[in-house]
């Protein structure tokens, strides 16, 4: 059996990569992809909890996992909506050029 800490190290590595991308990157789409990576890291952590936890903890973990999956899926759909909208309007994807959130 793989030690649970090794899986958590993957989670922290994914979060570290994602935070670095959010800090450095200016492209809105890539920033949203980095946010998706943070969701992926939380998914991996919760699945580790389900795999290594008790039966009660596993049930709670599944509830948390479904919540994370739902939000991650919504984030992808929102990302596509943002992309299509901004592309159609000719907006730049450079976040340093965005100055308002009106639609």
């Amino acid at each position: 059996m793989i030690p649970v800490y090794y899986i958590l190290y993957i989670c922290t590595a994914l979060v570290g990569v994602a935070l670095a991308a959010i800090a450095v990157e200016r492209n809105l789409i890539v920033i949203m992809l980095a946010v998706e990576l943070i969701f992926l890291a939380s998914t991996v952590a919760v699945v580790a909890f389900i795999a290594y936890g008790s039966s009660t903890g596993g049930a709670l973990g599944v509830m948390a996992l479904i919540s994370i999956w739902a939000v991650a899926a919504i984030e992808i759909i929102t990302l596509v909506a943002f992309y299509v909208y901004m592309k159609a309007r000719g907006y730049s994807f450079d976040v340093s050029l965005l100055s308002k959130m009106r639609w």
Partner: protein
Amino acid sequence: MPEPEFVLFVAVAVFTVGAAAAIFFQKSLMRSVMSLTLSFTGSAVIFYIIGQNVLALIQLLVFVGGLSTYLIVAVSSENREPRRTGAFVALAVFLSIGLSVALLAPMAITQGAGNFANYASSAFNSYYALLYVIALALFGAAMASVLVIRRFVRLIV
């Protein structure tokens, strides 16, 4: 001699984190999304390795097969220039190590190595009601996102 399962796990872990980092280095947005898809695939293999076959299947079907394909089709035409690669690598390494030390070391000292499951289980049980509130709030946010998307679609179609 390390066990084959452990070797496979390390290989998949390196692949998953490498694919995640590759999102930043790609010039084409489509390749960035494909890197994210590979990272999803790697996580599904990790789920399989730790014995969660059903969750691995859901991860593959929903995220790799469905949402990632949707995303690839949507953003396939956009290019971008990678920037500040050195800063990204330095920050990613610093944050990864820093988060590991800050989050995992105290848990290892107070709970003992390998007791993450007990720690997480007690935390989940203590905040059971709060988790329901958070889940409902997230559901509300999801519904609000759908409304926003409908508004966007109405504006551009």
